[in-house]
């Protein structure tokens, strides 16, 4: 569990550099604007409201994480943004234009592995350009560059089944980026990876983000991941999925693993934890367990 907040630091307190960073960030053009978004699913048992009145904006080259309890509508939100699901109310604007249907201007990386098994790594990365009708050596050179960028140049002619989970997701990122999308949508892309690979992937992603003109919207349910990666964190609450709070992460850039124990980091984590696990609910975490061992035979 999260340790209690040290020094009573408020997550809203920002150092001058961080404050300056956010001022600049908000002066950048809005890439994605979500306006009063709502989604209900018709089910046999009646309508399920997955999202209600969701409003937020993502600025150019911002890294935003979406976090929330399971079933609060995170996937539904990102699928609407990608155009894979149609909203019930509200609208989504990309660079001020309403989006409808999927398109290469919004790259997506899924939690499940979605590389095309019949294509090699390079052919997977070239898939988007090929759909646009581009082919030839320039596309191939371009694809190689993206593969280099995710550190897999040795594997460009391998098939997906020859890659590890982390490598597959790196190819998926390269494949999405090869389309030069305005925004990269990621739905728990590292959810299926082990802790070590996951940490490595987070670092790769931060490096990519830093060096490219790319805006990222990233879904996670891992508090550390959210704080470590984001400029801002959109916290959703469940039933119905509504924006609870948009947190400006007070941890300065560039990010490093040492920052995990800084007061700002811990305070932010603590706040998110409060939001997604309210105090009243934590009682539910205690199982109604009767004693089943002998008196005195205790472990704590």
């Amino acid at each position: 569990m999260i340790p209690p907040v040290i020094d009573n630091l408020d997550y809203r307190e920002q150092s001058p550099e961080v404050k300056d960073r956010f001022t600049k960030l908000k002066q950048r053009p809005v890439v994605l604007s979500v306006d009063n978004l709502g989604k209900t699913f018709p089910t046999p048992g009646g309508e399920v409201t997955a999202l209600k009145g969701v409003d937020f904006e993502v600025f150019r080259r911002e890294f935003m994480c979406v976090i929330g309890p399971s079933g609060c509508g995170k996937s539904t939100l990102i699928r609407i943004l990608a155009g894979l699901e149609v909203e019930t109310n509200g609208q989504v604007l990309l660079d001020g234009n309403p989006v409808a249907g999927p398109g290469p201007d919004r790259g997506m990386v899924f939690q499940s592995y979605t590389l095309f098994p019949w294509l090699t790594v390079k052919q997977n990365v070239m898939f988007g350009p090929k759909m646009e009708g581009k082919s030839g050596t320039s596309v191939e050179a371009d694809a190689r560059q993206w593969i280099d960028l995710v550190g897999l140049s040795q594997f460009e002619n391998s098939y997906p089944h020859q890659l590890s989970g982390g490598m597959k997701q790196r190819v998926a990122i390269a494949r999405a980026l090869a389309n030069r999308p305005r925004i990269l949508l990621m739905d728990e892309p590292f959810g299926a990876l082990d802790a070590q690979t996951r940490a490595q992937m987070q670092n790769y992603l931060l490096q990519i983000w830093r060096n490219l003109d790319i805006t990222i919207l990233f879904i996670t349910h891992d508090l550390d991941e959210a704080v470590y990666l984001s400029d801002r964190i959109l916290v959703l609450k469940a039933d119905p999925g509504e924006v609870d709070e948009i947190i400006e992460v007070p941890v300065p850039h560039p990010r490093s693993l040492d920052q995990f124990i800084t007061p700002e980091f811990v305070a932010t984590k603590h706040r998110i934890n409060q939001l997604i696990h309210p105090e009243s609910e934590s009682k539910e975490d205690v199982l109604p367990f009767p004693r089943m061992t002998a008196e005195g035979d205790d472990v704590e």
Partner: protein
Amino acid sequence: MSRSTTSPPPREPWFAVRRDLSAKRATVLTIISFALPLAIWAAVSYLPFLWHPDIRLQLSADREDVTTVYIAGDRVSKGFFPEFTEAVRAQNQAVEEQLKSEDPLGGISDSSVRRANKKILRHLSPILISNGIITEEQSKDDETIYKAWGDIATGAWVPKSPALTDENIEIVKRNWAVMSEVSPVYDSDNFISVPIISLIPQGKPSNPDYLPDPGQVFKSGAKAFTSPGEGDRPSMIQRVRHSIFIVFGGFLLAALVGVPIGVLCGTYAFFSKLIEPFTDFFRYMPAPTFSTLLVAIFLANDAPKIALVFVGTFFQLVLVVANTTRRLDLPLLEAAQTLGANQRQLLTHVVIPGILPNLYNDLRILLGWAWTWLVIAELVGVKSGLTEFIETQGRFRNFDMVFPIIILIGVIGFTTDQILALLRGVIFPYTEDGAAASANPLVKALMFIPRWFRQAVSERLPADLANHKSLSTKA
């Protein structure tokens, strides 16, 4: 520590729930799986104490009191055989007694006694044939047979395979004594006109004719395959080719029409709802029930036969392919859409390449399905191919001729399937089979096929089919 070094390595169990065996054990079991049925067949065929409910006659034989005539090679049940031999002995006894009486011919004319005697003479010919004294064509060559009687009687020649029973040698001697008195060589006009006695039926325990032994089956099979065709009777190779043509013709037509329809049904709900319900209904109507109809439509020759294989395969194929198409991972289609694929590109660049390995497997299984229609198809209209041969030989109870053909059909189907299974890994190197196949040296040699295949595919699919941008901004 010292204990673990001295104790033998733990033995792998032969039986463990859902666990693979080592490659060596798996191979051994595979070999046994074929060797065992063959061994059982051989044992039942060659070990007389195992089954052998019949006696296979080595001599021709008949009984005056009943009109049944047995020729060598016929089988009588073990229960009936003693009764049969006793009846013949009793008959001989009656002849001997008749000869001692005042009226040795029993009121029968000379010519009919001669005729009966000539018949007895020829009862020996099967023994002469199997001993190689005469050929099958000479079985009525009375001169040679007559001489053989003499040789046996005098001991100049002793039949070995099979030998005559002592009882029958005595009969030969007894008959020869009276026969040689009349004429030392065969003379049709001066043939003995007092009754001689019959040879006693002799035979060997055997299985019923519907279970020929492996050696016999092999011999008959070899004979069937080496004898050339004559006139309108095709050779076996021609029959095999014709049968393969019927099966593959029907199957390939069904695949050619059925695969596109199945893919469309699996891809678009529109086609699924339009086509599948009726297809589902139609496949419950057994294909053979259409055979007369197909002959009326397609007339004689091969067309109605191919049509029957088609009808038997097509409807199943559409449904199987539609299901395989539907099983394609939905996230792959979603990922392709976020990468800019339009509806048409989804079909050409995701659905089709995505289902190919499973489609290949489906078609492999359906080819096996098509084989099961072969016999019925070849009975439609004018009988043809391997089935015609089986039918004819089966009617004459030449089951030793029928077995090789049944086995051959199995072998053709099985080897085709095995080769196709092996090729799957070669054609689709990105599947699990592919990984296993690439380790196989035989497959390594065949690796030019996937390269050629991929090249052919990538050249065929044009890169630019539509502009995705118009789709994503317009809708």
